[in-house]
């Protein structure tokens, strides 16, 4: 059975930010409707009740659908209506840090989400069925964050004062992402179905970023290691990146199969794993790589 929380109305002026840190599957599992309604929401300096703003229906049994997460990643990007999940609906743009720190279970946000959605996730699956604000998935160390719309700036970046961005975990975005996606990423996968803003994968330490569309300027600036796969647009330029030839990269087949199974619409031509490879950023360690599908991008620049 699912637990549904529908936002009735938001009486506060735009810019007034709220946080509901207890709206997590692992905390809501087994709670009564009344207990859920009494949970706190922080709005500015005030603390209000969940029941004052949300209609609560249903309940969440056991571990909040954790078993679903462990057994299958298929269809992550597909809209789902599975049992055993928390569903938040409405325009949740004022709510920051939705799903932040999730460790298990499944949560679906049926509407746009505010900043820092899924920040610090350690497990489980968070689906946002519209756009996500900036800093989504910041500092993740596990789990799956799927955004069916677009994501704002600093997707999967480091939390303030932290040195690492995503360090394990999977972020899938059906639409586009803003600037600096994957900054200081250490491990894990970020897949962006549309375009990415400037400075994609800047300061990457390791991990894999896949962009099906175009990326803004400064792709991989100061990246030390890691892989960026760039579907379209301008191939990285010298002197920061050096052309490293082309060929078939059999490791890609493992990502290709896994990402397709997760619902990422990779082009059919990518199955062969043939890429042109650029290594850099040579102003640093220079062990990073940008892969451009053979014949897919303009490497004249």
């Amino acid at each position, binding site marked *: 059975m699912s637990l549904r929380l529908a936002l009735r109305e938001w009486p506060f002026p735009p810019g007034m930010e709220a946080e509901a840190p207890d709206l997590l599957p692992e905390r809501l599992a087994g709670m009564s409707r009344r207990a859920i309604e009494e949970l706190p929401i922080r709005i500015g300096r005030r603390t209000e009740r969940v029941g004052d703003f949300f209609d609560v229906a249903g309940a969440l049994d056991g571990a909040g659908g954790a078993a679903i997460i462990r057994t299958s990643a298929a269809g992550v990007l597909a809209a789902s209506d599975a049992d055993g999940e928390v569903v938040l609906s409405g325009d949740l743009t004022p709510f920051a840090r939705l799903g932040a720190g999730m460790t298990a279970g499944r949560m679906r946000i049926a509407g746009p989400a505010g900043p820092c959605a899924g920040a610090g996730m350690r497990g489980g699956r968070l689906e946002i069925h519209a756009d996500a604000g900036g800093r989504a998935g910041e500092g993740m160390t596990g789990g799956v964050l799927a955004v069916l719309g677009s994501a704002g700036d600093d997707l999967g970046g480091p939390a303030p004062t932290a040195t690492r961005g995503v360090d394990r975990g999977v972020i899938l975005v059906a639409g586009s992402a803003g600037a600096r996606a994957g900054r200081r990423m250490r491990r894990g996968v970020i897949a962006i179905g549309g375009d990415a803003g400037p400075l994609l994968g800047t300061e990457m330490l390791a991990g894999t970023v896949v962009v099906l569309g175009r990326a803004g300027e400064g792709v991989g600036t100061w990246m030390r290691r890691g892989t960026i796969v760039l579907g379209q647009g301008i191939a990285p330029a010298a002197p920061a990146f050096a052309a490293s030839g082309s*060929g078939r990269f059999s490791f890609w087949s*493992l990502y290709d199969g896994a*990402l397709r199974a997760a619902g990422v619409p990779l082009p059919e031509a990518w199955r062969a794993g043939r890429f042109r490879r650029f290594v850099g950023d040579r102003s640093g360690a220079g062990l990073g790589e940008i892969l451009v599908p053979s014949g897919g991008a303009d490497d004249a620049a």
Partner: protein
Amino acid sequence: MLIDGTFIEDTYAEAFGLRAARVLVTSDTAAWAQTAALSMTGFATSIIACGCEAGMEGPAPAATPDARPGVNVLLFARTVADLQDQVVRRVGQCVMTAAGASCYDALGPADDSVRLGSLLRFFGDGQQTSKRIDPALADAGRVRPRRLWRIPVMDGEFVVDDRCGVRKGVAGGNFLILGRTPETTLAAAERAVAAIRLLPEVILPFPGGVVRSGSKVGSKYRKLIASTNSPYCPTLRGVVETALPPDVESVLEIVIDGLTVEAVGAAVATGARAACGPGIVRIGAGNYGGRLGKYLFHLRPLLSGTTPPGQAAAPPKPR
């Protein structure tokens, strides 16, 4: 008990426990995957002198992690440390060197693991890179993250799993084919091998799947732990006590290693049945009175199908 005119002796095969690993070797073509796997399983007939027993597992996998043709290889050794040594040597020297080849752990649930890519990576001289595929994106049912190493080589990259799973296996399942002539005996052995090679989870580690130099435990020479199986040598009739009927001129043995008792039992039954026919006088089995091995495969119950799967090793080991 007779099958196709062949007498089935009322005896049992004796097998023992070893540690097992399974790796999947892939390449751009099935022929090159086969070549790499064949090279890797060379000189791996018996743990007595080869360090491990290894062979290509029957059916080719329907799907491989990198979507290329592949061959599963099973390796068996006495200890996890022995397996560690053998797996790294063989993958490093025979798979990493083979054109286009990659190597993946293919065991599934494991009790333990040994290092593979995490040791071979040093060949990359600092230019190697690793990729970690999150469990949420990895193969269904895989609970551990998959960590791969990409080692630069002259035709591109050698991709290899960081570690390789290990679990308990069964080695030394066997049966003996006693024939009237060397030709009919060899033909029967070839039928048995062809039938067993269709089965999963088992390998036939000896050349062509057939052993002609079956052994007994011990020797008159103190340094040898095994010596020729003299009761089954036709040329020693009249010299030592023989186990051969008068019309038998040749004996060949099929030795089977497998991941489970059930798999080895099924292979013994399938192979022995395929070997029966004209010119084959008896099907026997090698044992040491129940003193050496933990697993006993009684031929008659196995071949009559009265031993339910999972009980191929009944009855308990005699004391």
